[in-house]
């Protein structure tokens, strides 16, 4: 084929391409089907959240955090609230901590279910998407029952959680956990051993350990590359040190490993939820903080948690007034988009889509 004269051409993939998960735009230079160069263009969802935070009181920032990462809004709220609580040294009631863990883990499962569906959809299987959303709906119903909203919860408050759970929450939650546990065999049966799925994901988009570390890749993507690092275990926040769960870890760093790892994480999260439900104490759920006059002492800190995509952090500087001086949000997708050109250059366009899907990027986290 060396004698064949070919010409590279540019394809604009996005910002409203079906498989760029929101409004990411990739400028691809292609040689036929082969991607020669990838240039991610972000910023289509830029809402200058960090600037808005500087003009809001701490309590008013929390609903904004929902918009930072709307697939796992609980964790986005939690990371901010957690940082403020650490700054102001507020003791959170025990029950509230348990509720937070339950909500965070439920939300992690919901996010992984979306990942499962969306990835399958990007690789061409349409049905898993609906199956994933079907079980996610159970979780979303639990959230709505508790805090009244399905997507942007505003559940975490500085000093606790906004609502105690209703009576029927615990039986419904146990039922949802059971159903999801049962449906896992369906999910795995559909894709895990499917030869087409294996062909499409095995050894596709391999992210070596060194590259992953260097580019600040975190969460399931990092663990699939062989680094057993989970902030829930390594730097425990909230009450995660009380629960017994494993950190799944895989070593190939390809799309298939990233996919399997997330299914494993669903199982671990189910374990945590059951333990948290068993140990749920009675008591208050909110330590009273005046939202209008809440002034954490001056200071600064970087607080990080492990959300479903990786390390989510917030660098917060308080100058002792009612409004934060600086809120810097760190979303793991930012690094995942950044590493995409390193992983996916030189592959076919279909592999690019598979890689992008298993990196599990969500754009509001990137653009903020």
């Amino acid at each position, binding site marked *: 084929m060396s004698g064949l004269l070919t010409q590279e051409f540019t394809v604009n993939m996005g910002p409203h391409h*079906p*498989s760029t998960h929101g409004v990411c735009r990739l400028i691809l230079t292609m040689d036929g089907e082969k991607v020669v160069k990838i240039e991610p263009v972000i910023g289509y969802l830029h809402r200058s959240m960090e600037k808005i935070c500087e003009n809001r009181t701490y309590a008013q920032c929390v609903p904004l955090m929902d918009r930072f990462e709307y697939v796992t809004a609980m964790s986005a709220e939690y990371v901010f609230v957690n940082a403020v609580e650490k700054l102001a040294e507020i003791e959170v009631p025990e029950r509230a901590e348990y509720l937070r863990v339950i909500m965070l883990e439920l939300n992690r499962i919901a996010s992984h279910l979306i990942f499962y569906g969306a990835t399958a959809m*990007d690789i061409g299987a*349409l049905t898993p998407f*609906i199956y994933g959303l079907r079980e996610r709906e159970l979780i979303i119903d639990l959230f709505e029952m508790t805090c009244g909203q399905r997507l942007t919860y505003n559940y975490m408050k500085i000093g606790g959680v906004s609502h105690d759970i209703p009576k029927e929450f615990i039986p419904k939650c146990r039922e949802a956990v059971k159903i999801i546990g049962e449906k896992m065999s369906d999910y795995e049966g*559909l894709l895990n051993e499917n030869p087409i799925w294996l062909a499409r994901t095995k050894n596709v988009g391999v992210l070596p350990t060194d590259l992953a570390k260097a580019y600040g890749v975190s969460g399931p993507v990092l663990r699939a590359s062989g680094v057993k690092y989970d902030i829930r275990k390594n730097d425990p926040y909230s009450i995660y040190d009380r629960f017994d769960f494993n950190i799944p870890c895989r070593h190939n760093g390809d799309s298939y490993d990233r996919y399997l790892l997330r299914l494993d994480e669903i199982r671990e999260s189910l374990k945590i939820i059951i333990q948290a439900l068993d140990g749920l104490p009675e008591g208050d759920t909110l330590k009273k903080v005046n939202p209008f006059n809440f002034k954490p002492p001056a200071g600064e800190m970087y607080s990080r948690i492990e959300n479903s995509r990786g390390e989510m952090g917030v660098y917060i500087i308080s100058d002792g007034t009612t409004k934060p001086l600086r809120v810097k949000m760190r979303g793991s997708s930012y690094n995942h988009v950044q590493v995409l050109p390193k992983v996916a250059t030189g592959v076919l*366009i*279909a592999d690019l889509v598979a890689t992008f899907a298993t990196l599990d990027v969500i754009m509001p986290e990137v653009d903020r």
Partner: protein
Amino acid sequence: MILATAELIGIFQWLHGFLVDLGLKEPWLSIVVYCLLSVTVFGVLCLIALFLVWWERKIAGHIQQRFGPMRNGWHGWYQTVMDALKLLQKEDIRVDTRDKAVFFWAPVICFVAAFMAYIVIPFGKGLIVADLNIGILYIIAITTFTVISLLMAGWGSHNKYALLGGMRSAAQVVSYEVPMVASILTVIIFSGSLSMVDISNSQQGNLIFNWFIFRPPFGIIAFITYIIAATAEANRTPFDIPEAEQELVAGFNIEYSGMKFAMFFLAEFVNMFTVSAIATTLFLGGWNGPLLPSWLWFLIKTLLVVLLLMVFRWTFPRLRVDQLMEFAWKFLVPVTFANLILAGWMKYAGWYW
């Protein structure tokens, strides 16, 4: 050429007599009769295509534990009719930089080619427009026209996604033509004829065990390879890379809208019905079956094959383009040719028949 039909013979005789009474003479008589037949087949096929669109949506809905269309009529039975009407009213958006003639003719060719195959497909005992003695060859030739139209659509749209889709479809259809023909040839070895009617007739009797699919092992292997190749031929998942909506957005038909899009869309479903009808005729005994009228048997069998293709689509992920080609050339072609040669040798040696 057979005009007389088992069930509908009365109507045709009446029609024939009516036209003769009008004073029509050959060749005009034949022309008018064939025109009427074609229009009938066309109408029936349009209905079938509309039905298939609805059915696919229902199957998809039920597989995914949804309802699917429910609004228009009982379980939305005329939903697709309304969709077609809607598409008719839509603005026909044309890209300024398109290649005008190519852009216009692509959907037309696609549509026509999809329907032309039905000239030789026997819907029932004697229910055939024209029983060509090279029937199956004619079908293979005519269905390949589709690829030209897809390539034209890809080129004429002046869109890189569309072009990629068109190129993919050309590569795919041409590659899968080879194993498809090889598995069809296995059947021709069994039957000894290219005529669709002869093939159907040779599967008559003995309940269902005369069907070519039950001639182990060659029949079943040929059937499986044919179904795989046919799925690719009809551009359906897991071989739907020409329109791969997650990669190429919609592939070749990305720039088409309104009725032109509808023509591609209907042609796709007609193609699906075509490959299923061929599978029925070649492997599943055609119209043969006990008790029920022949056309009903044919329809039931064909729809079952269509159902299989639909379950494929709603279960499997999509193959990558290079894997698709590798699968065709490195796996399907050797298997089908080995199957063909062995079957021919067996027949020559007279071990079976």
